[in-house]
């Protein structure tokens, strides 16, 4: 469609599709069997790497598929088409006292994408992944067959499609169960911490708080982990102050692409110091609107472009936790040693709730997401070393953020990949899938 870009969020993965076919009606979708090459659904391109790209193949643009079908505001059951954004869902349900069961760090993702990546949020320790709240969906296979999937009906395909990276067919619509909230605000605390042990002490707040997450200053701090700010919150009544700005659409962006990176070490070092020191009191409690709490970066449309033409790489891993927090220490130490610029990092302890998907990323442990400016080989070498550390600890790297993990690493991180592969639609593929399976 006009002016739409078929790139991924990190801007590092190349891979223009040979064709883009819009999917407009769930009752009258394109005949998939007749389309040339391999197929992959695409919506707003918020995956960072190549899992949402299909170089040389066909992308099925599902953004026109954006209709609500039914909403019961007594039970909180919502049914809508796959291209509806989480932003639109929140706009509809929050005034009626409901909230999405799980939200990621941006509201500009589609419902279909949320399922295909089995996304997680700041309440993973309470709610598990997004897929755990999906009650059913309809999947269109390239054979033309429509399969209604739920935990009870076609359960194997249901489990393959949740977290299935869009490879099992085209999700036309889905039904999810929302969560009741007392109001649109978040009562939150922001607490400074100086290092790893303090962070884990603060994690005890998982008992009392629906949402917990930590921002890490990747450039400062006493120990390998770094200093940071721990954020925790609960839904609260009361309007809270209005969010400062409202990005108009998922396609909003900077008026011009900067020809060089605006995000650079001295600037970010200063920014992080101000952000960290800017909080004078060790602890601040206040009530805020939900949007800046969950989606702070959505206030800067197209922030990914601040990294310049080189692009950005995000690396998100999960490693099991143990008494000495050794695995997460090892990951951070490796980053420190490399002197690669990690400006921003986010840390969160996952809960024990099992993820429903065969290829779901979340598992019990500590997850760490780090943004790096892409600097070619040296960045890639660091990430390969990190893969080795994560694999040795029995962890995993998140495909939705990835543009470079090796096939061997993927297979080690996702040991159930072979049983998943049996459910992949014969006509569906992605740049990511070809890369990690060599197919």
């Amino acid at each position: 469609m006009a002016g739409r870009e078929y790139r991924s969020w990190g801007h590092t993965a190349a891979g223009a599709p040979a064709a883009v076919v819009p999917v407009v009606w769930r009752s009258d979708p394109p005949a998939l069997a007749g389309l040339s090459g391999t197929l992959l659904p695409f919506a707003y391109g918020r995956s960072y790497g190549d899992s949402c790209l299909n170089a040389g193949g066909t992308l099925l643009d599902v953004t026109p598929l954006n209709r609500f079908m039914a909403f019961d505001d007594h039970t909180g059951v919502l049914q809508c088409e796959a291209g509806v954004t989480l932003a639109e869902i929140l706009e509809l349900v929050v005034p009626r006292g409901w909230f999405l069961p799980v939200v990621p760090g941006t509201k500009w993702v589609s419902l279909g994408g949320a399922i295909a990546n089995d996304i997680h949020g700041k309440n993973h320790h309470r709610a598990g992944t997004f897929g755990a709240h999906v009650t059913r969906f309809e999947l269109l296979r390239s054979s033309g067959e429509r399969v209604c999937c739920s935990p009870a009906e076609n359960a194997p395909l249901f489990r393959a499609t949740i977290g299935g990276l869009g490879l099992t067919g085209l999700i036309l619509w889905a039904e999810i169960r929302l969560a009741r909230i007392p109001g649109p605000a978040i009562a939150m605390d922001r607490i400074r911490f100086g290092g790893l042990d303090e962070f884990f002490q603060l994690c005890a707040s998982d008992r009392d708080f629906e949402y917990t997450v930590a921002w890490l200053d990747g450039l400062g701090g006493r120990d390998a982990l770094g200093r940071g700010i721990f954020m925790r919150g609960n839904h609260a009544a009361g309007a809270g102050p209005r969010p400062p700005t409202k990005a108009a659409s998922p396609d909003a962006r900077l008026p011009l692409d900067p020809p060089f990176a605006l995000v650079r070490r001295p600037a970010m070092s200063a920014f992080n110091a101000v952000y960290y020191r800017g909080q004078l009191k060790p602890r601040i409690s206040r009530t805020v609107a939900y949007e800046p709490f969950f989606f702070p970066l959505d206030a800067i449309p197209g922030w990914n472009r601040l990294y310049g033409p080189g692009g950005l790489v995000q690396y998100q891993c999960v490693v099991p936790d143990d008494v000495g927090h050794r695995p997460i220490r090892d990951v951070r130490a490796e980053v420190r040693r490399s002197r690669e610029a990690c400006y921003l990092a986010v840390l969160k302890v996952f809960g024990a709730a099992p993820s429903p998907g065969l290829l779901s990323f979340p598992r019990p442990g500590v997850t760490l997401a780090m943004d790096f400016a892409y600097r070619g080989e040296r960045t890639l070498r660091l990430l390969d070393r990190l893969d080795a550390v994560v694999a040795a600890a029995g962890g995993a790297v998140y495909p939705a953020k990835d543009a470079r993990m090796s096939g061997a690493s993927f297979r080690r991180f996702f040991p159930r990949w072979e049983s998943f592969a049996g459910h992949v639609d014969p006509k569906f593929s992605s740049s990511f899938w070809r890369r990690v399976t060599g197919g």
Partner: protein
Amino acid sequence: MPRVLIVGATSAIAIEVAKAFAARGARLFLSGRDPLKLSAVADDLRVRYAAQVESAVLDVSDVARHEDLVGRALRCWGGLDVVLVAHGILPDQARCEASVAETLRALEINFIGTAALLTVVAAAFERQRSGCIAVITSVAGDRGRGSNYVYGAAKGGLHVFLQGLRNRLHAAGVTVLEIKPGFVDTPMTAHVPKGGLFASPHRVGRAIHRAITRRRDVVYVPWFWRPLMLGIRLVPERVFKRLKL
């Protein structure tokens, strides 16, 4: 709150106009050819805006059913304030040139069906002495071009039809609005390579809603098509006929 009948309600532009009305509490009566698409649109409006929406299937080329449809819409909401005529097809010019049947079909849907429907609507609005009749035509109707004159002729014919209708209904207090969109990024134009002139259906839909509430006569959407088309109309025919357009 306005009561609105939309014919061709499953078109991308019509959906955006319907959303703009529904968001402000309007009551809607939708018609379209495909019952499943129609109910998908109606359900979306109900869920998003808690809107009062009714719908009925109609193929505009089935001229005999126009009276019945308009009657149902009038009875449903006890009168109508706005009728938006948004149906239409973009015929393949080359196929029209090769086939009389194809040319006639395009004219039938885009001109004859619309003129018939407008005759029924005009009579009803003249009787109630109020209302706005809004019709989506196209900048293609401003001047015939070799690349799409079958489409352009139907839209240009509607332009004259609407001028006359406006002149006739002015005394009855009825507004007749002609909407001339330029290129819009919709499923109808999915096969056309996109340039910078393409506007989103959302933008066009909001502009149409605004033009209806402001009781305008003729609007170009987006606005820049007005000077652009003026320029194109001013080119002398002996020059224009040599251009590849």
